[in-house]
């Protein structure tokens, strides 16, 4: 494997990791407020198809991205209503979102199956002047597109918000002990709603990025492929911390791209199907390994995650 292939692979890994990072940071925001939204996969898919339709119609990737994020936010708002106001089971609600999202995106996407994205609607590349000339790091990190850089800003901003600001403290309080937060006068339901919806927007953004930057055309079967669930696993690996989710996302990006690199390097003894299993198996093995180390077991999991809340009810 020569050097340029390594650089290319790493650059592709960063790009492939970006939607995972967006979705995972979104889910961290949601879960920090105590809401478990398993519907990331469905929100990403709906975001992707909405983005594709609007971007192709308007010729603007940005309009597409906003539309995609909005559609996913609507799904997230549904989950928020069902799990916060109606206090229903969040796991089932999240899975319902996945099924609904798969159905709706395939339904809306059927007429455009296999249609390529209009070149003008593709996300333009954007290099960082100066930094892009650093060997290896330059092409890997600084010759990407605006969304990749925005993801770093997002990770930093989310970390700052959650751990260094007063509102962030309230969010964590809601996620850890909602009745305490309620007694403190924090508007717990409003916070849970807002953070579930923001998480949905980011999942929609992740779907938008898949379509605008990574895939040549719309194809329901090839769009997310479980990335939404890998993003949820990333939240656990990252112990609910945005920076770790970002790094983890790039590692998984590498796992997603490794098969192309191996094929390019002339490794043909392993079937494509088995190479494609790698990211899933990696996720599963990491999860098991993580739960083996007892002390780290509960590191960071919000205490009130998944718990519905009714005032004066125990």
């Amino acid at each position, binding site marked *: 494997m020569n050097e340029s292939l390594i650089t290319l692979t790493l650059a592709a890994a960063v790009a492939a990791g970006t939607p995972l990072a967006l979705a995972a940071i979104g889910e961290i925001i949601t879960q920090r407020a105590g809401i478990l939204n398993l519907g990331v996969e469905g929100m990403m898919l709906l975001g992707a198809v909405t983005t594709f339709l609007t971007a192709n119609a308007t010729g603007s990737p940005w309009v597409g991205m906003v539309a995609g994020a909005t559609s996913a936010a609507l799904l997230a708002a549904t989950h928020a209503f*069902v799990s916060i106001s109606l206090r229903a089971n969040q*796991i089932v609600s999240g899975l319902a979102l*996945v099924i609904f999202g798969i159905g709706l995106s395939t339904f809306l996407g059927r007429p455009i199956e296999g249609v390529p994205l209009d070149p003008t609607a593709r996300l333009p590349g954007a290099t960082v002047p100066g930094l892009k000339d650093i060997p290896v790091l330059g092409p890997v990190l600084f010759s990407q597109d605006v969304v990749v850089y925005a993801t770093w800003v997002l990770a930093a901003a989310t970390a700052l918000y959650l751990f260094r600001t007063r509102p962030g403290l309230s969010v964590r309080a809601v996620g850890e002990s909602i009745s305490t937060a309620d007694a403190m006068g924090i508007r717990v339901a409003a916070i849970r709603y807002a953070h579930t919806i923001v998480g949905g927007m980011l999942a929609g953004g992740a779907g938008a990025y898949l379509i605008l930057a990574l895939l040549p055309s719309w194809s329901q079967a090839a769009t997310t492929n479980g990335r939404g669930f890998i993003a*949820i696993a990333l939240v656990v690996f990252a112990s609910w911390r945005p920076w770790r989710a970002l790094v983890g996302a790039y590692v998984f990006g590498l796992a997603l791209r490794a098969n192309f690199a191996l094929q390019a390097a002339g490794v043909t003894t392993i079937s494509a199907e088995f190479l494609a299993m790698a990211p899933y198996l990696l996720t599963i093995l990491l999860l098991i390994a993580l739960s083996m180390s007892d002390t780290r077991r509960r590191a960071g999991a919000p205490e009130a995650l998944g718990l519905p809340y009714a005032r004066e009810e125990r």
Partner: protein
Amino acid sequence: MYPLAPAAAVLLALMVGAFFLVVAGHDPITVYRVMMRSSFGSTPAVINTLVSATPLILTGLAALVCFRVRLWNIGAEGQLYVGAILASGVALWFGDRLGAPIAITVTIFAGALGGTLFVALPALARSWLGTNEIITTLLLNFVALLLMNWLIFGSRSYWRDPVGTFPQGKRIPSAAEFPRLGDTRLHLGLLVALVAVLLVWLMLTRTRFGFHMRVFGDSEKAARYVGISARRMILMAFLISGALAGVAGAIDVGGLSRRLDPNSLAIGLGYAGIIVAALSRLNPGGVVLVAILIGGVRNAGTALQALPERVPMEIAVMLEGAILIFALSSEVFIRYRIRWPWSAHRAITGSPFAAIPTGGDRA
């Protein structure tokens, strides 16, 4: 309230579906009329619906067994594929050496074994280490799909038909083919599914294990105090669940496709099982009714595809998701007596499907 709630859920879901049908430029009244006609409108339609419902009964039971003890096996999809792989492999291997009744029995048990084996890793990880089973079982679905695709499309495996230009599974020997019921498309699989319903019901209501399941599902703490082993309970629930999903795979092989056919298997039967279990409110008898309802919706989806205006069949999947969301929302009306915000309300407990805390105690 209870019988009203699911009906309302279906109605509301149809309204959401109508909205998107209009958006996509279809006439919802026509679409729903065709759906109704092709799912329950005639004897052949009803038979097709029952054929579609058969695997859903089994995947619904698979979800039910785990949900009863608050475990989230989302991997019935993958367990079904592996069940089908093992069932077709065993059927092919025995060939016509066995008589029909034995060959069929062996095929079904091979399916159960396949599902059990495939759920073993997440089950062990959950029971011994507390590993979150939602993510592990779910991601294994993708692994199983890739494995099945490799066997048929990606290699010259034992399962693949060595002749023929299109890659497809080798036909199983006639001894392992399920007999049809009368002159219809209905096959032995439906009876197998109904027997499974009966067995699960007996297990839940008439055995010590079922009683332990109920205690464990109501309160893990209480179960611990009376000496029910959580590890054993979790493991058993998973293995039974996997076996049921695996049998669903075997039934497709023996009764419908007569070979390992990814196109017939990979249609989201495992995910739909979650809906079936949820809508049945974790009641084995209810599973049959809901499976027939969902089977009808799916069947209708296929018929829509054949319409001149080609309404995408995925409207059916979307409806399934919407039905689940609304059914879940209606739980609140079943569980709580609604008095509006200006008066206090109190919970009526005891729903097996009440909001369940998760995640916090399992990394």
